[in-house]
């Protein structure tokens, strides 16, 4: 993942036939060559849409107590509800909540915590990585020692430590995930930026006496994007899995904002008595989410890495 695969821009001087092969078009067509990655992207897009429109499409609002009926607690998948207005396709939990609705709402929390923390970590990590590569010397070594230190501790341990101090809460989980993940971005960006900053275009930009921040953000950063996109995609999946794990352990999101992990955790005690669906279906949803993101990320790595090109 060293050199950039995207040339600066397509030359506009070239006589334009009906379809110019811009780098972006080439990238899109290469991406859709892989069937698994395409399926992954479609599934992931569907999940995002479900999460976005959960209040509109879910059979019930699982957190509106007026809509819940405790008599409907722990019903098997496929049972009609007490008022006979809709079917609990995935069963209900101990409070009589429709699991399908619960999963749709849980997906909102899981995806937003995962994506939110990944974006913030990316901003922090990429900035520090660029700074380390551009400044070099002492700044570089201080930042990279921090990165090494962070990466030598398992993510779960660092997150555990932070949440043990700060307590539960959505924002605390996001903060913990950012602290755990920024180092991956910093390392990736620094590695790429070190190679890129020796190229002629950076020298040219410096010779034009452009301000440093402009050189870094307008010239260096765009050329470090491909590996950053790959790491970012994978880290979203990791963040979602880690958030689910923390919530399962009871350290993550509060009970009022249940993510998929917390739903799984709620069903844990009923699992031993054979009421599998309370844990099983949220788990499947989590699984599909993580795998679809990984499929996309895995293929992005192949497409964006020029070294693997035939």
């Amino acid at each position, binding site marked *: 993942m060293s050199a950039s695969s995207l040339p600066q821009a397509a030359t506009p001087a070239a006589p334009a036939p009906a379809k110019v092969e811009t780098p972006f078009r080439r990238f899109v067509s290469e991406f859709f060559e892989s069937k698994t990655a395409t399926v992954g992207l479609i599934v992931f897009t569907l999940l995002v849409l479900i999460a976005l429109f959960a209040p509109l499409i879910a059979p019930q609002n699982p957190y509106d107590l007026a809509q819940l009926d405790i008599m409907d607690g722990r019903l098997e998948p496929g049972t009609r509800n007490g008022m006979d207005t809709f079917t609990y396709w995935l069963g209900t939990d101990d409070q009589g909540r429709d699991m399908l609705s619960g999963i749709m709402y849980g997906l909102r929390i899981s995806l937003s915590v995962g994506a939110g923390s990944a974006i913030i970590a990316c901003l922090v990590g990429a900035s520090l990585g660029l700074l380390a590569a551009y400044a070099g010397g002492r700044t570089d070594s201080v930042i990279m020692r921090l990165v090494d230190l962070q990466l030598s501790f398992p993510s779960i341990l660092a997150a555990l430590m932070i949440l043990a101090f700060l307590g539960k809460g959505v924002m605390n989980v996001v903060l913990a995930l950012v602290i755990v993940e920024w180092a991956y971005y910093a390392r990736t960006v620094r590695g790429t930026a070190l190679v890129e900053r020796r190229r002629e275009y950076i020298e040219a930009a410096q010779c034009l006496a452009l301000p440093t921040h402009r050189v870094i953000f307008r010239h260096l950063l765009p050329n470090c994007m491909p590996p950053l996109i790959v790491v970012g995609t994978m880290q979203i999946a990791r963040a979602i899995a880690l958030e689910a794990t923390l919530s399962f352990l009871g350290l993550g999101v509060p009970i009022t904002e249940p993510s998929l992990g917390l739903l799984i955790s709620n069903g844990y005690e009923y699992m031993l008595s054979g009421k599998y669906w309370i844990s099983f279906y949220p*788990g499947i949803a989590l699984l599909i989410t993580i795998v679809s993101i990984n499929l996309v990320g895995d293929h992005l790595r192949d497409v964006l890495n020029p070294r693997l090109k035939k």
Partner: protein
Amino acid sequence: MSLYLLRRLFQAALVMLAMSVIVFVGVYAIGDPVEILISPDADQIERERAIKALGLDLPLWMQYLSFLGNALRGDLGRSFVFNEPALQLILQRMPATLELAFGATIMALIIGIPLGLYAGLKPKSPVSKTIMTASIFGFSLPTFWVGLMLIMVFAVQLGWLPSTGRGETVEVLGMRWSFLTWDGLRHLAMPALNLALFKISLVIRLTRAGVRETMLMDYVKFARAKGLTNKRVIFVHVFKNIMIPVVTVVGLELGSTIAFSVVTESVFAWPGMGKLIIDSINVLDRPVIVAYLMIIVLMFITINLLVDLSYSALDPRVRLENKQ
């Protein structure tokens, strides 16, 4: 070498010190130390006395020094819940965690190496492709969910294995171990497999990559040219060479296995350090949290130090680079 060792030891001590500051600040400055260190049942007079006795009326840096001094003497406070020294509490539970972590590591090697070997030798066969796809799942599935599924299938549906606890234990060297009894082994099987899943995938990938690389080496071609049997080439010439990176990485992973046992122990109610820390966080038994964090940090720094030292012993370039 001795200079390098000294420098490295100094660095490790520095990191440990930095972590102790972080833990101290986390518990004493972010949280309210009065609430953290004094039992909530205490009345006003007891409270005042305890604040004096614990030195909580002193400036923060003096408090830190006394915390550090106590920690160096092995005194990390008493658990509110168990009313025992926190350190002792954790050390009692350490054998269970170590047993689980080593069980998982052994399992990862036993399962991962043959599968990786097969996938490396026949990269095009459908079985190999299945193995490699399965290994992606091993990497991406959340451990706790796989644990739940294992319980659902093997404990609830099939009833083959017990779902929770350590089972029968035997006392050896003053510690209780369950891998020495049949019942204990039955209890160990599922948690160890659960904890091993990630590592199995890792070993499969490493072994496969190693095999594919080694098969192209001249000495393998030479061995074949000598007319050695396929079996001998693979198990003597190739196998020995791929084992070095595999064993190194698995050894390095031991620390993170111990850390991730937090999850597995919670799923299977395995009474180790990990379950203790989660329970302690949930009931805010902070002396235990502090003690656990300090111990685990110490463990990590020691593992990293040992790895670095053994690298530098094996590879002189590492020492020379550090001299500059």
